């Protein structure tokens, strides 16, 4: 029983992802198609398991597609933050001294920025395209990764196998990519997993305000917004996407924290 409970977050995440990526083609109604005969219909209407929204689009398939877009944005943005953060942190940790100092001061200064507003600013400036949503988020979310990788790098820098490799004349690039980064892969992976739910939140936040993903595409944030607009007549439209979003964020956070505690202890 206890083992089942421990495995619950991973199973839920898997379930949501598999449903979002595999199920939509098998549903009778596409997420963009309007069913004129069933507008704002309740759950269990024939053909619409969870009912339809106020213009007659199937809620189940909209939620699944929204989940797909949200997870896609999250994974892409987390990858961007992984790339920037790892390189920045590895370089700072490897060089040490003054370069390290300057690089980490920059990270500190950026931490003090009201980062959500910077992302919104980026959205306003470069238009609201889905590509920019995740580049913008990833460019802001890399700070923690940079700090973590730098800390690991500083510790590894003094380890005999790195020193030996250096003494044998290996180039810094070779040492960083072949020796140092693979050695901290577990820690990086754990923090990557923790970045994903944060990005999910940011993306939904932006989409909720109308600054993220644009119609006819949809995302969990947009669905929550639409649901909130007509929750008085149709609470399901708020509960379903909201529930998926919250489940996803909670389960991913729990998973990430568990991995972090196990791999960094």
């Amino acid at each position, binding site marked *: 029983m206890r083992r089942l409970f421990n495995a619950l977050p991973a199973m839920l995440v898997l379930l949501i992802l598999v449903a979002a990526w595999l199920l939509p083609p098998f549903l009778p109604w596409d997420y963009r198609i309007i069913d004129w005969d069933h507008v704002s219909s309740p759950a269990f209407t024939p053909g619409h398991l969870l009912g339809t929204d106020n213009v007659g689009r199937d809620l189940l398939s909209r939620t699944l597609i929204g989940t797909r877009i949200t997870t896609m944005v999250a994974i892409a943005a987390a990858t961007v933050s992984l790339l920037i953060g790892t390189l920045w942190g590895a370089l700072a940790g490897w060089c040490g001294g003054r370069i390290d100092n300057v690089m980490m001061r920059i990270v500190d200064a950026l931490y003090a920025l009201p980062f959500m507003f910077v992302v919104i600013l980026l959205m*306003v400036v470069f*238009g609201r395209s889905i590509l920019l949503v995740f580049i913008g988020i990833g460019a802001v979310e890399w700070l923690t990764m940079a700090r973590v990788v730098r800390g690991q790098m500083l510790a590894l820098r003094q380890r005999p196998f790195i020193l030996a490799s250096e003494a044998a004349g290996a180039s810094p690039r070779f040492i960083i990519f072949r020796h140092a980064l693979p050695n901290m892969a577990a820690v990086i992976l754990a923090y990557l997993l923790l970045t994903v739910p944060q990005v999910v939140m940011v993306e939904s936040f932006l989409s909720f*305000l109308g600054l993220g993903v644009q119609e006819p595409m949809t995302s969990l944030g947009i669905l*929550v917004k639409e649901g909130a607009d007509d929750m008085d007549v149709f609470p399901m439209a708020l509960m379903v996407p*909201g529930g998926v979003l*919250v489940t996803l964020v909670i389960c991913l956070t729990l998973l990430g924290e568990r991995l972090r505690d196990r791999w960094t202890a």
Partner: protein
Amino acid sequence: MFGLILRRLMASIPTLLAVVFLSFFLMRFAPGSPFDGERPLDPETRLALDAAYGLDQPIIVQFGRYITGLAHGDFGPSLVYRDFTVTDLIWTGLPVSLLIGALALLLAMAGGIAIGLAATLRPNGPLDCRLMLGMTLLTALPTFVTGPILALVFALWLGWLPVAGWGNGAPVYVVLPVLALTLPTMGAVAKLTRAGLAQIMTQDHIRAAQGRGISGWRLISRHALRPALLPVISYAGPAAAGLLTGAVVIETIFALPGLGRYFVQGALNRDYPLVMGVVTLYAALIVLFNLIADVLYGWLDPRVRG
């Protein structure tokens, strides 16, 4: 102490300048213009509008003017709300946002510390486990989900409170927004308090106190609480930042006439001066909160006063 404040103030100047610089240049390089409408304007009108708002000057001159204006407390004219300056809009929105934010911060701190304490009284007991699981859930609930759900339950179904609106700050209108804003921060504060206390309780001075026969509430309140609150205090800065961000959503959901609403409207309408002004103000507020947190930290922990 005074030196600490002064040093921190000096250190915040580059951050603020960076924010102003970044927002100014990003906004100016943006494609599109606030004067773009359904039909293109004829060139003469366009030129006249640009000249009226100083947009025909070189960009460096515009930046210089903007900085000079800022130093005098002038955020420039709003390009969309034609009859208002950004300063006017900020002055109408700021009190609303500050009231909501300050109430939420106070509630989150008080509630979070109380829950953290309650959980520590019996470490790893059933109450502790349940409270901490609850707090983890709270921190993961985004305000844009809790806000509508609270409105649905307490306003639409139960009819106890108004769904939205400001009502000139009447208490009934303030309850739901503040509650929605408080919950995630309260969860984080409770977790930090719990973690801080758990760590302090293993230290020597606690064992010494226990050896002298002090236990229970007195042990926690007199010996453990003050050092355990240090991480909570340093979280106050980020918490304030989080509350400001959350307030943007909350003000949109509950239709409050606060800063966040103007910010979102400005962002959707490409009202450059308004967005820049609000971002600058938010940055200043966050810097201020970090400063207050640092000073409090120095007051609680003599080791960092230097």
